[in-house]
């Protein structure tokens, strides 16, 4: 469960204050699958960074799994991050480690025993469908396979929330759909999923909850399509020129 109450985050920059998020209140229940959409600079990454406590909110309250994290002591941040897995557009695998080692790495970091590692890593690799690639290195894999490794690493410690920041941004359409099916499967096992995306067709076809952010504010929160037709032409242009617009050409 993730709950934001009147959360505001502004960045100080040379040009003054940039709005990151402005008075955002939102509740994401356990087991939800939520798309976070909005134009570039809207505040999506800010939202994610606040959940991971990479940055501090200026005001408001943020609860993750019932734990108030706005004034969490540094000592407890690792505990928060163990309950929240994250994957990125650029995979972020360790190039000198094999697939198996990349996933095992996440378990070593939280002091799991060798035995637990030997048992769980193959299980999770099989869940994401790359058992046969366990001893390959990242640069021997396709983008879709690399993203599967990243997902395996993010879920191997059984987080309650999986955050995905444009996980299909670097993938072709077909591979993107494979990743979406995998995420849906993980969601069906009870893991809450928050996914940032610019992919209209994915959002439209999945029929999940859509939270749209613009200029730091939640401008829409309902189940359904990427856009509800109320956006300004400027924004619509941006949406249509998105990743899948590119692939459609």
């Amino acid at each position, binding site marked *: 469960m993730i709950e934001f109450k009147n959360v505001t985050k502004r960045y100080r920059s040379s040009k003054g204050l940039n709005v990151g998020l402005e008075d955002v209140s939102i509740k994401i229940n356990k087991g939800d699958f939520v798309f976070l959409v909005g134009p570039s600079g809207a505040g999506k990454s800010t939202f994610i960074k606040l959940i991971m406590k990479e940055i501090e909110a200026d005001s408001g309250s943020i609860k993750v799994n019932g734990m108030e994290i706005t004034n969490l002591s540094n000592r407890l941040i690792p505990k928060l991050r163990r309950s929240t897995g994250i994957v990125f557009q650029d995979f972020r695998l360790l190039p000198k480690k094999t697939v198996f080692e990349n996933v095992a790495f996440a378990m070593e970091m939280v002091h799991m025993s060798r035995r637990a590692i030997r048992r769980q890593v193959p299980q999770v690799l099989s869940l994401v469908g790359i058992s046969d690639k366990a001893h390959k290195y990242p640069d021997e894999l396709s983008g879709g396979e690399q993203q599967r490794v990243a997902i395996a*690493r993010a879920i191997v410690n059984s987080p309650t929330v999986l955050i995905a920041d444009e996980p299909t941004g670097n993938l072709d359409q077909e591979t993107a759909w494979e990743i979406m099916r995998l995420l849906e499967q993980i969601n069906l096992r009870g893991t809450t999923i928050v996914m940032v995306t610019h992919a209209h067709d994915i959002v439209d076809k999945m029929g999940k909850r859509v939270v749209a952010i613009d200029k730091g504010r939640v401008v829409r929160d309902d189940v359904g399509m990427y856009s509800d037709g109320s956006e300004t032409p400027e924004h619509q242009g941006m949406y249509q020129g998105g990743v899948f617009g590119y692939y459609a050409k």
Partner: protein
Amino acid sequence: MLNSIIYSIKQAFIQGGRNRAMSLASIFSITAMLLILSVFFILMVNMNVAVESAKQDYETIQIYLLDETTQEETEKILDAIAAMPEVDDIYYLSKDDALAQWKADWGDSAYLLDSLPANPLPNALVVSVGELADADAVVEQAQQYSGVEDIMYYRETVEKLVKVTNSLQIAAIVIMVFLVVVSIVVVSNTIKLTVMARSHEISIMKYVGATNWFIRGPFLVEGIIIGLISAAISVVLSAFIYSRVIAVVGQDIFLMMGIPMVPVSFLVFNLVFIFVALGVSIGACGSIISMRRFLDT
């Protein structure tokens, strides 16, 4: 816990090995710092020994008696001074005993004294006072006796000596602190290179929930190992060099000042502790500082 320590040590050797040139550069700089420190340390220790021994000599008041002074009169003076509350201790030192002691002090070189035509030393009363400031009273009292030839005491000398050594010690400590700070900066910059080379890995460690101490562990161990190796090299080098110095000039210094140099074994014993403590702290502080920026969030 144990697993984490083993992990840290393993990783430290792996990454230290990968950055062999940088690790060697660090070891080289810390060793250089420690060697400079050891020069100061050796000078300080020897100076302290010299000053202590000089103080012992000078803190006593020597009342020289005329050769004609009778035993009766000597005892009268001794009793009177011994009765003073300022006096800690007083004893009679005959001119023969004094010469024998002098010869004993000079050891192998005592034969030089054999050429003296007659014993030049007077009979004396040797007085120790608890406080240097009390010496004046004793001197005043002793001056009243006609059997007293001369009174030797060095209140001002001792006070000056103490002042000089104190300021030398402060100077040495300031220089040592400076050197330690420089070493910490050197190590932290070296380790920062390792940290930067692994910043991608560190950011992933943070995302998957590794604690800051777990992330620091390998770098901390790397710093400590660098410190320990430097300490070992420095102890061996300074012991070797110092023993050569003693072999070459120890005898001359002893003859000139009447004070033996501090033995190598004493030095090594102390340097091992000091260098290991310093090496470990320099390495540990250096690595913690080098990681600060990477572990903010």
